[in-house]
């Protein structure tokens, strides 16, 4: 019987629909396709009438003969359908078995060896002896001895073969001998890689058989048989040998070994110095000849032995490399085997070398003692010690004094205005130098005084020297009072203009505001407000076309040039240019500027203005063009004196002068971004005074806050007493306030509280208290030194923790987990040492967090990413690595950030569905890090996909879990976005969150106590309120705070909820206007009840109470609080505008180059 199908699709349909009955389709057939693509099938089976009718409906006809068709035999009808191409990816095959069919068995060895060489030993094989194929139906090829003349054939099964090996099959390398690779598409049906059969799911191999499908080839059927592992035959049995030695029966006597010092290691890297002969003279010489930066890095202790004084100087803990110190008359030491309290002379090592734990046991077991090995010159040594707490910061004992008294001059009052030396809100910089505790009132002139009478150990005698006179710099308050005069017309105009500027709606870049800048600049210029005029001109020139900029650039130069000082023998270097008609700086004036070793801010700002002016001229000045190299060097050295805008204007125009030096622009961009990342825009440098002091004057605010915080500390102590003191909570409250006061520059008050806490916490010799005290001490000292509050604890403290007894360690880790003062960046899991051992991956991640070297960060991240399994399986791990990388990316470079961002979206999309709050928070923080990095480097193409995903994530959250997560989500997303100008996005996110939490109700009408998960929802709402404050929507935020306040002070929440709500309330209150915020925060300590806990750690402190105190203190010392939200908002807006222009310029420069 012959059937003619209109095409192969019809045949397929007939097979699927059952129009061709199974009995017929399973039988062999002869078939062919003619020129019109019609498919002819001849079969011995017969069709019933109903089947025929059905087939006719599919346009199948039943001719009597097959003519004009080349015919071929098939084992079954499905075989007539050809295989179809199918895309495939090597990444999906990492765990998939692939069957290599080698028609020439001689190739097996080379294939196996190659695969083994490339690291894959998951291989097994079978030998087949084939019967030559005779055409027609599929032949069953048994594993037999038949067909001895046929070439041997082999099957190699490899799980996840290397791509290199797969290419042998894909590219048919080796021609006819090339292997064919098959994938198992359905049980026991293997199809050639890159193909599939249209009925693959329907094809079932007979029991005990395998089926191999290749395009344009008859199907091959094999008997199923076990594959032999490649290692099956490789077993090396060695002959039995004779043992030649027995254990000795004698007891080995103990062997005495005398330790000595031998030469070894580089003679450098000293971090510890001991002065023996005339130590004070040497130290005085040292402090008088070194910068304060070096001195701030050192601490010292004075000791006495046999009536002879010695002074020991050491480097204070820091993440920075140790300073290079040249201390005459001292022996230099450095730490040995990373033991924090053991020092060996540089260039020596201990002989014989011992394990670290042995050395510690022998020489440095007591960590409260610092030990150094004093060499006797003959190889032997004497261990000498000093208590750890006898070391004091060297800088605190050094006074800088003037040789001559100040000569107060009569102030001069100009008719209508006053030109003040600009000052920023840095009162601490001009405050009276504070005397170290215990210093004498009398002082003499010009000497350094060193006094360690505070040392807790009486063995260490006081060294008394002549005491220097203190000549404090005058404070602002002590300056002569300026006479009050009526403001001039220009001043009135300026004030009006500033008010108009502030009153306008919209961002800093709004068109109306842009129009006001030139007028502000002109008025400030006419009033000789050089700083404000300069910043206004920079804003004028920031977004202008070339012609307009050309007209105004000279005005900027002219006003900046007014501030350039005359120097001892010469007129200002700008004078001749200002007087000349061609508006060019003569070469020798430029040289004078470039030769200045310590240029003033005015010099650099004027140079920046001149570069902009010169670049905009049709023919740039030849004297400038000839000096572009030295100018670049000079500018790079001193660019930190420039406002960010000035810096960028200078570099972008300098690059144009250098004929489009794109690399210089890119490098300048990197430096600007780094500066923005580390310090952001600074009000005193980057904003004109009327924006800087928008709202309450910053200096007043700052001073008031400091005084108020001191009072608040007493309130907090009273609150702890009233609520019920647990353990040493009060000492920790002292430490928290000490940190806050240190951040605000109240060093005396900070030190006082630190000293109180130190005494209290050292009372019981408790390891946990000691460790926590060290941690706070480190953070407080960083704050006192004005260093950023970032990074992990120092290595020596972490070492101590590593070796601590487990319960004490838990107590310490518990507070580390809660306290953002101790651990500003990382949330510690206190249970991790109780659970399973940390695995290699986790360890790598932890180490990555501590890594500071940029190249090593890149290496570590790339290595980690490389080792993670591809595809969805490794998505979670990949996310964690990417997150850690993104955290560091702003410090590394754009290329690194780009690579990570390219991976972020695919990785995020491959993440499994969120089922737990912790996972949700993790993913949100991942997106937030990516958003920040994308914004930082201006990679707008990544921003919107990320924001979209963030919103989707938010939308997908419903119910109790969502409420729990929202609080974390809100705090994660707002921080980074606002500095990137994403106002709209934040606003949308805030509104979405509010809707989610309130479920359409009014905030006042919700009964938060009865509502499911009410306190958590209220906390999330408080985060939203923080955002509203930022946008100036104070009324909406106040309303939320009002509701939260009522719930909080009603005090009928469970203790844990009460604490958490208080913390969220304090954080949100910190964003409010300062007076309102102060009242709210004070009220916490006056009226808050029911904050106690019964955790394991309550023997040491009340975590709950400390949580509340820390939240209040951190809210007070935040930039938003001290600078003022309004000024901070200007700064954030301004930072966005700066970033936008920088990225645009660099992109344009690159495009120009291309």
């Amino acid at each position, binding site marked *: 019987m012959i059937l003619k199908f209109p095409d192969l699709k019809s045949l397929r349909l007939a097979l699927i629909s059952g129009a061709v009955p199974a009995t017929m389709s399973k039988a062999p057939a002869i078939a062919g396709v003619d020129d019109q693509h019609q498919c002819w099938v001849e079969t011995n089976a017969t069709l019933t009438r109903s089947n025929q009718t059905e087939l006719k409906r599919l346009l199948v006809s039943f001719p009597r003969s097959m003519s004009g068709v080349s015919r071929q035999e098939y084992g079954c009808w499905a075989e007539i359908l050809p295989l179809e191409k199918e895309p495939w990816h090597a990444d999906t095959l990492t765990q998939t078995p692939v069957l290599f069919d080698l028609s020439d068995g001689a190739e097996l060895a080379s294939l196996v060896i190659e695969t083994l060489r*490339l690291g894959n030993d998951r291989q097994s094989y079978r030998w087949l002896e084939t019967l030559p194929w005779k055409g027609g139906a599929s032949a069953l090829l048994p594993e037999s001895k038949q067909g001895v003349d046929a070439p041997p054939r082999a099957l190699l099964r490899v799980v996840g073969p290397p791509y290199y090996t797969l290419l042998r099959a894909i590219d048919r*390398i080796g021609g006819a001998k090339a292997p064919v690779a098959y994938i198992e598409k359905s049980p026991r049906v293997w199809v050639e890689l890159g193909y599939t059969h249209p009925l693959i799911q329907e094809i079932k191999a007979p029991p005990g058989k395998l089926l191999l499908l290749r395009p344009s080839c008859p199907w091959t059927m094999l008997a199923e048989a076990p594959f032999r592992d490649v290692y099956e035959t490789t077993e090396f049995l060695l002959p039995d040998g004779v043992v030649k030695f027995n254990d000795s029966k004698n007891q080995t006597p103990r062997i005495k070994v005398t330790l000595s010092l031998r030469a070894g290691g580089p003679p450098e890297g000293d971090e510890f110095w001991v002065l023996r002969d005339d130590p004070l003279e040497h130290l005085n010489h040292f402090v008088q000849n070194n910068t304060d930066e070096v001195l701030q890095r050192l601490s010292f202790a004075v000791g006495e032995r046999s009536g002879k004084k010695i002074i020991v100087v050491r480097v204070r803990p820091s993440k920075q490399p140790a300073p290079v110190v040249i201390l005459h008359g001292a022996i230099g030491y450095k730490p040995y085997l990373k033991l924090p309290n053991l020092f060996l002379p540089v260039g020596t090592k201990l002989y014989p070398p011992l394990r670290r734990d042995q050395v510690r046991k022998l020489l440095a077991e007591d960590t409260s003692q610092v030990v150094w090995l004093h060499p006797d010159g003959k190889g032997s040594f004497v261990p000498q010690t000093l208590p750890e707490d006898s070391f004091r910061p060297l800088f605190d004992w050094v006074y800088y004094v003037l040789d001559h008294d100040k000569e107060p001059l009569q102030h001069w009052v100009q008719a209508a205005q006053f030109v003040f030396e600009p000052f920023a809100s840095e009162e601490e910089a001009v405050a009276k130098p504070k005397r170290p505790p215990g210093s004498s009132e009398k002082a003499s002139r010009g000497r350094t005084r060193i006094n360690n009478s505070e040392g807790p150990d009486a063995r260490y005698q006081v060294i008394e020297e002549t005491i220097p006179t203190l000549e404090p710099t005058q404070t602002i308050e002590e300056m002569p009072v300026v006479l009050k005069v009526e403001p001039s017309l220009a001043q009135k105009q300026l004030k009006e203009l500033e008010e108009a500027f502030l009153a306008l709606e919209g961002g800093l870049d709004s068109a109306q505001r842009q129009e006001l800048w030139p007028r502000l600049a002109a008025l400030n210029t006419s009033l000789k407000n050089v700083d404000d005029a300069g910043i206004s001109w920079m804003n004028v020139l920031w977004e202008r076309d070339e012609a307009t900029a050309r007209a105004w650039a000279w005005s900027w130069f002219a006003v900046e040039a007014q501030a350039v000082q005359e120097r001892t023998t010469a007129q200002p270097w700008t004078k001749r240019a200002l007087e000349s008609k061609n508006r060019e700086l003569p070469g020798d004036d430029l040289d004078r500027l470039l030769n200045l070793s310590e240029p003033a801010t005015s010099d650099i700002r004027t140079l920046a203005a001149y570069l902009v002016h010169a670049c905009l001229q049709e023919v740039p000045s030849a004297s400038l063009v000839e000096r572009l190299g030295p100018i670049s*060097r000079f500018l790079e050295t001193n660019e930190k004196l420039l406002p960010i805008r000035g810096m960028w204007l200078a570099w972008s125009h300098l690059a144009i002068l250098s004929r489009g030096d*794109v690399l*210089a622009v890119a490098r300048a961009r990197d430096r600007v971004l780094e500066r923005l990342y580390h310090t952001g825009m600074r009000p005193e440098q980057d904003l004109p005074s009327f924006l800087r002091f928008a709202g309450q004057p910053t200096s007043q605010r700052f001073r008031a806050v400091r005084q108020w915080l001191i009072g608040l500390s007493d309130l907090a102590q009273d609150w702890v007493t009233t609520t019920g003191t647990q353990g040493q909570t009060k000492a920790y409250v002292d430490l928290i306030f000490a940190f806050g006061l240190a951040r605000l520059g109240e060093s005396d008050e900070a030190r006082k509280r630190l000293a109180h806490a130190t005494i209290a916490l050292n009372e019981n010799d408790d390891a946990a208290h000691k460790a926590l005290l060290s941690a706070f001490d480190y953070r407080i000292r960083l704050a006192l030194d004005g260093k950023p509050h970032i990074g992990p604890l120092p290595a020596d403290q972490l070492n101590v923790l590593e070796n601590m007894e487990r319960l004490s360690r838990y107590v310490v880790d518990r507070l580390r987990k809660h306290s953002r003062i101790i651990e500003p960046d990382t949330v510690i899991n206190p249970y991790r040492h109780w659970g399973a051992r940390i695995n290699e991956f986790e360890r790598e991640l932890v180490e990555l967090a501590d890594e500071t070297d940029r190249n090593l960060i890149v290496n570590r991240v790339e290595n980690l990413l490389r080792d993670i399994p591809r595809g969805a399986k490794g998505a979670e791990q990949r996310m964690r690595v990417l997150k850690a990388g993104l955290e560091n990316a702003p410090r590394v470079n754009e290329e690194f950030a780009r690579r990570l961002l390219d991976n972020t979206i695919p990785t995020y999309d491959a993440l499994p569905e969120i089922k737990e709050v912790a996972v949700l928070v993790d993913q949100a923080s991942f997106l937030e890090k990516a958003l920040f990095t994308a914004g930082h480097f201006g990679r707008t193409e990544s921003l919107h996909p990320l924001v979209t995903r963030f919103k989707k994530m938010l939308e997908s959250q419903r119910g109790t879990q969502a409420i729990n997560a929202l609080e974390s989500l809100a705090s994660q997303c707002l921080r980074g976005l606002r500095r990137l100008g994403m106002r709209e996005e934040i606003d949308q996110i805030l509104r979405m969150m509010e809707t989610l939490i309130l479920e359409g109700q009014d905030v006042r009408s919700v009964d938060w106590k009865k509502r499911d998960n009410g306190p958590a929802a209220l906390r999330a709402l408080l985060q939203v309120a923080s955002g509203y404050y930022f946008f100036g929507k104070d009324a909406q935020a106040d309303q939320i705070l009002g509701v939260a306040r009522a719930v909080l002070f009603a005090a009928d929440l469970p203790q844990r909820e009460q604490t958490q709500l208080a913390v969220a309330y304090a954080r949100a209150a910190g964003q409010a206007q300062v007076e309102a915020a102060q009242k709210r925060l004070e009220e916490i300590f006056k009226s808050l009840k029911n904050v106690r806990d019964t955790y394991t750690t309550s023997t040491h402190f009340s975590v709950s109470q400390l949580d509340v105190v820390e939240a209040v203190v951190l809210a007070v010392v935040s930039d938003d609080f001290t600078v003022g939200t309004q000024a901070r908002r200007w700064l954030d807006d301004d930072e966005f505008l700066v970033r936008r222009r920088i990225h645009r310029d660099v992109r344009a420069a690159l495009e120009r180059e291309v």
Partner: protein
Amino acid sequence: MAKTEAPTLSREDWSYEELQAEAEELRSRLNRFRLSLGRFFVQKQDLIDLMVVAAVAQEPLLIVGPPGTAKSDLVLKFKDALGLGEGDYFEYMLTRFTEPSEIVGPIDIGKLREGRYIRREQGKLPTARLGFLDEIFKSNSAILNILLTIINERKFYQDGVPMPVRLRVLFAATNEIPEQAELAALKDRFCLKAESRSVQDNYFTNLIDAGIQGEVYKGLAQKPWIEGHATLDDMLKANRYLTYQFGRRHRSGRSEEQNDRQMYFPAEVFDEFQRLVKTLIREDHIFISDRKLVKLYKLFRVRAWLFTGGTVSRDDLRLLAYLGESHQEIELLRDKVPMLLGEA
């Protein structure tokens, strides 16, 4: 230091017949040259071979390595051994403050006043035949732009008018390979990037002995590596000879025309080449531009001719190990290419 002696003039228009007669002799001179020069270094033979291959192919070579790993010394001795005159050689250490005038000559101020932007290039890179630029990635984009034009087009613009340069061989060195995207174009121009590694771990004694001997040579102002085995002209001749060959059509026994690839690149080695490239791109994301693939072909052929005088073999494919664009890639390829080739 820039050298100012006048360059020697030489012809480069040799005919194929002239070169064919001399080809074997050229090959053996160049082989003597590379092997003899190798005696003056510890474990740098591979690098010297690569320098010779790059020089014959007239492809720039970037030597990457930490300070003190003989990068500059290799180039200096290479130059000496070729007997190059001072005017034919230019070397300079670049910094980000290096100005174009230091590399391609100062602007002629007199002519600038006439409105013409002309550089006095005498004694600078455009007039040298062998150039060595140390710390190349530290330079600024003005210099990078000039270098790109010189490397790509063998041209140098004077007042907007392209002028041919004499530079034939360019070596560059760097301690670090920065990742800035702005440098990608220049990095891509250096098809080969070879690592000069410290050898003290495995060849401590040899290193000390050779180092002391080197100090002696220096102290006594001796240069025994100048043995006159080959000259720069020999390399240029070899280049021209192979260029002729690339363009020739060969007739096989059955009168079918065969091009250079069919003649000198056996199919199985060519398949292997493709397989390696695909694997490196897929598995390790190594970027190999189309331009680089073509250059690689040329380099394989040069190496095969130089080392065996015949067809390209699997061993020549080892050049793929020098394609890394970053330290990580260089390190990876150093191990991976031999592993894939089965020679590790």
